[in-house]
């Protein structure tokens, strides 16, 4: 069966729930403390042996720019394939690069993987809506008192918010 489309924001969330339900010994669903501005729950999944104590972690996030629709699906796909390979004790091949089952086990033994495939669910929902804008990049923060809606999440993390040092001086700029 070919991949003929992209997942919606709610399907990505359902995909994370599916992962945690299907692979409970290595997947733990994490709900972020704050919902999106439009009230959507934002979830991540921790992939690693749940019986082990805390280990170094790798956080991978995707979907900050709403119109870049491929990368959230790719990250969820990686999670699905890793969990399946772990369950079946098989390796994985991506493109021309192969990883043996033992290499994957070493990775999972040594680290906890945190996958957050959709940082900006409101933006994705707007991009995929028939009445939305397929080229929308930001989130859907109304920005009271400003002419433009939305914040570019990829340019405005908490650290030095809206400063001119490393981040945009204008958190709702289109650039």
């Amino acid at each position, binding site marked *: 069966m070919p991949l003929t*489309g992209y997942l*919606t924001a709610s399907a990505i969330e359902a*995909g994370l729930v*599916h992962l945690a339900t299907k692979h409970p010994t290595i997947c733990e669903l994490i709900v972020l403390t704050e919902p999106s501005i439009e009230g959507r729950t934002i979830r991540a999944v921790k992939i690693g042996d749940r019986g082990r104590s805390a280990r170094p972690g790798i956080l991978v996030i995707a979907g900050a720019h709403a119109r870049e629709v491929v990368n959230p699906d790719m990250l969820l796909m990686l999670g699905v394939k890793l969990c399946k390979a772990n369950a079946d004790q098989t390796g994985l091949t991506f493109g021309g690069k192969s990883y043996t089952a033992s290499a994957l086990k070493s990775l999972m033994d040594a680290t906890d993987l945190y996958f957050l495939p959709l940082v900006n669910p409101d933006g994705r929902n707007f*991009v*995929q809506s028939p009445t939305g804008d397929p080229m929308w990049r930001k989130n859907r923060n109304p920005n009271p008192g400003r002419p433009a809606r939305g914040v570019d999440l990829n340019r405005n993390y908490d650290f030095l918010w809206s400063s001119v040092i490393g981040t945009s001086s204008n958190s709702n700029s*289109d*650039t």
Partner: protein
Amino acid sequence: MDQKFFVTVVAPDRAALGRLASYELDLLHQTSAVTQLRTTRMGSRAAEASAPSKPSEEVQQISIDGLLTMEQVARLVGDGYEVVVREPASKRARATQTMDLQEWLKAVLEK
């Protein structure tokens, strides 16, 4: 909501390319490029006949792609930039092609 278009903005020089940052436009930074173009000077047939082997001239084109409204295009043109409008943004939009999760999972695990 104003319709947006994929465009190529051609700047008259490198400094002008840099000044685009102050416009707060949706420009695709990774596409900025300096391209060597070879042009041939065209003159009258008589002139060409008298100097048929006149060499072509190399010129630099400094450009960047972006996603702009027509109002933004007009502003840039008014400020001395050349803007080539490629196509409406909607022509490249694929995001509304969605897939059911169960079908997606089946496709992913078959791959």
